[in-house]
């Protein structure tokens, strides 16, 4: 099989990747870039733990073939959240509200909240619940996660 080559912007850094045509984005990110915040929970598009932002939109890295992303695609994983104010606010919100338990769902939840607040900075509880409906969390009961996103929204507003 021929190897493909792509140039992406991953967490703000230019990367050149080479992979087999059928490689899952999940494996490419984990194995080639060591982005281990991208977790496999089910491998079949049902749990949301592998979600990453592609050009700002949450996508399931277990369902996307790396080959589907063109050159110039911009990806954000939880490793990159430290790079901007909203990302930091999101993490602070999760920390303050004790929204992290086992942490397996957390990186993708952070990204889901981040994408929502980028589009809707003052998102209400039901908007948050809808935005995160594709993410399973077995630990928290979700209440703390919703509060955390609300807290991040507050922090961002204060900081703005």
């Amino acid at each position, binding site marked *: 099989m021929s190897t493909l080559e792509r140039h992406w912007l991953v967490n703000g850094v230019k990367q050149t990747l080479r992979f087999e045509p059928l490689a899952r984005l999940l494996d490419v990110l984990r194995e080639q870039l060591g982005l281990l915040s991208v977790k496999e929970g089910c491998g079949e598009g049902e749990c949301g733990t592998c979600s990453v932002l592609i050009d700002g939109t949450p996508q399931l890295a277990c369902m996307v073939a790396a080959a589907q992303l063109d050159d110039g695609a911009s990806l954000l994983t939880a490793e990159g959240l430290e790079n901007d104010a909203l990302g930091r606010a999101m993490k602070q919100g999760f920390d303050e509200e004790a929204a992290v338990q086992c942490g397996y769902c957390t990186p993708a939840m952070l990204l889901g909240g981040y994408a929502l607040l980028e589009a809707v900075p003052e998102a209400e509880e039901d908007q948050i*619940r809808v935005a995160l409906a594709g*993410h399973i969390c077995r630990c928290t009961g979700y*209440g703390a*996660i919703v509060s955390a996103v609300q807290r991040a929204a507050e922090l961002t507003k204060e900081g703005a």
Partner: protein
Amino acid sequence: MIGDNKRRKDAHDKMDGSLRYTADVDYPGLWHAATVRAPLAHGRLRGIRQGGNIDWSKLIFATAADIPGTKNVRMIAQDMPFLADDLVRYKGEPVAVVAAPTRAEAQMACRAVEVEMEPLEAILTLDEIVAKHQRGDPDLEVLSQWSFGHGDVEAALESADIVVEGAYTTPHQEQAYLETNAMTAIPEDDGGVCVEGSLQCPYYVAPAVAAMLDVGLDKLHVRALPMGGAFGGKEDFPSVLGGHVALLAQKAGRPVRIVLDRSEDIAYSTKRHPAWMHIRTGAAKDGTLIAADIDIVFDGGAYATMSPVVLSRGAIHAPGPYRWPVVQVRAVAYRTHTPPNGAFRGFGVPQTAYAIESHMDRLAQVCEVEPHTFRLNNRLRIGDRTGTSQVLKDSVASEEVLKHTMEVTDFARKWRKWGIKGTDKHDLGAPARGVGLSFFWHGAGFTGAGEARIAARVALDLVQGGRVRIRVSSTEMGQGAHTVLPQIVANALGVPHSQVSVDPVDTRFVPDSGPTVASRTTMIVGGELEGCALDARAWLLQSTADKLQRAPETLSVVEGRLRGGKEDLGSFATHLQAALGDNELKTFERQHALAPHLQWDEASHTGDAYATYTWGCCVAEVLIHRDTYEVEVPRLTMVVDVGRIINPKLAKGQVEGGTLQALGYALCEEVGVGEDGALLRDSFQTYILPTTLDAPEIEVHMLEKPYTRGPGGAKGLGEMPMNGAAPALANAVEHALGVRVTDLPLSPEKIFAACSAARAGRSS
């Protein structure tokens, strides 16, 4: 410090992906394992053939014949083989394991193995064993049984004004931790092996795998890595996988890892036991309880493994937190040819709590007493005797919990207004509205003499520079143990939380504090650590007092500083350095012993089943859509007594999370067993877990009724939240529609069927 919302120590590393779970750790030369599974639920193995277009010389293949030592997994019962040898007892039972450079290659090789079996008749479902149980069929294989109680139940029921009888059933439940089971074995230079992974109980895995390899514990150590959830599902099962990878790693002379994919994990790892509970109760006309007779059947699955202890805990809690002058409980777990059932948060209690709390509502109804009053009148009190004849001596919060629940939920008013018989006018266009109550308890720590047998050991190191390090075998699965235990120590020692940490859990370095189960970590392990911290503090103060020529009782440690009254004498680190002299550290150790007044007889299940209990109430509000029969849950309220709250936000998170798992159990989670013995719903597409949109508002109220021997008064917490929501929801559905569904989950189909049956009954 106790009672403060200290932030989790691992939060940041979990948020940016720097925390390493098992599948994240890289080893040079690592190979990957996969499992060859039996094609039939029951039968004899006739042949295992390595076929296909595979160069087997390039892979590692192992069957039971390759196991050098003990072939069975050491657990509570030691009856399950690592790899089936002759008899296969469930579909998918491991018969061989393969290691290859990649997971895909290992899986492909497994598919090329032909397993030949001679079929035997299989028993697959709870329904089958219950039918046989009722007939007294001698075919049934008993995996475990217990019976206990006091008084002549037949005579007491005879004398009762009111007798109510009912049967209740519950299904398998999958733990559904988001990180699937994963284990790695790494051969070490000294000829030993390290087994690491996603596991709750390092001192279960170590002896099990050592015995399998036929090596001493000096040649095998176990590292428990942080887990992406466990909930009991990584209590006993990791010993099996640990054995598989250790066997392969030894043969291959290189590290080998297994990571289950989701469908394998659901289909073949342990689940909550399906259960059938038959309850006969008698009461006086005024609603005073007279007697209970309870018959319990658990589907143990193919091997006994953890069933004896799960069944025991379920049975002990089966009469509920009530005073029964006469009570008899008989409980049995039978073998079925399905994967072994095991530990899952609540450990047998969610089943029996659902049964007794459904039943109590029915009994109250017949006695014409409102459900809350019925519970308040009959609740256990100090000095009362439980089913195991334990006399309750302290920390009984039954009254506080019930009364607080009534206050914060306004239950009585809602109960009178809503529901099919409520005073509110019925609008047939609107969903039917109901409210339900459940009242429950949970024994903290191991049952009976369990804690005496474990005799948990803990260690605390005070290190040059002022660091305080905890060494315990308690693992971090998300529950927050590695944040809360330092809080207990920091509080007792008088140093900041940031100065105290938990060492990596490796059996080479940490003592055996027992398994991370049974809501015992904070209470038992935390209690002993608090003791160590107080010893350490006394030692430091004495040494400082000697140097300064003062009386030790005039000195104290506050926020990391030594003080003599108001006078600041310098930092903890400085005085520690002086006290340590040339030593790098000083270690303080403690070992747990049961309080001497606790007595337990295992065979008759009589005596003090638990050192103490936690108490809780759940109120569920439901809206049932009249066209779809779907149950919407706008709000669940949990009122729980946990003795003393160490970290309110983390504690609340435990209650909220457990409550949502219980809601899933009540409403949507069901695995199902197929005709060939396969577990049916083996993906997240078919096994439905609650999402953000299904989760109700969960209101949590925590009460504190201190337990004298717990750290700061704390009791166990982790499991109790799993007990309340299912019966509260069942009671709320009954309240709304006037029909009772007696088997979980409360699916729209079952509610519809119950409503249709009720209508048919009324019109005939």
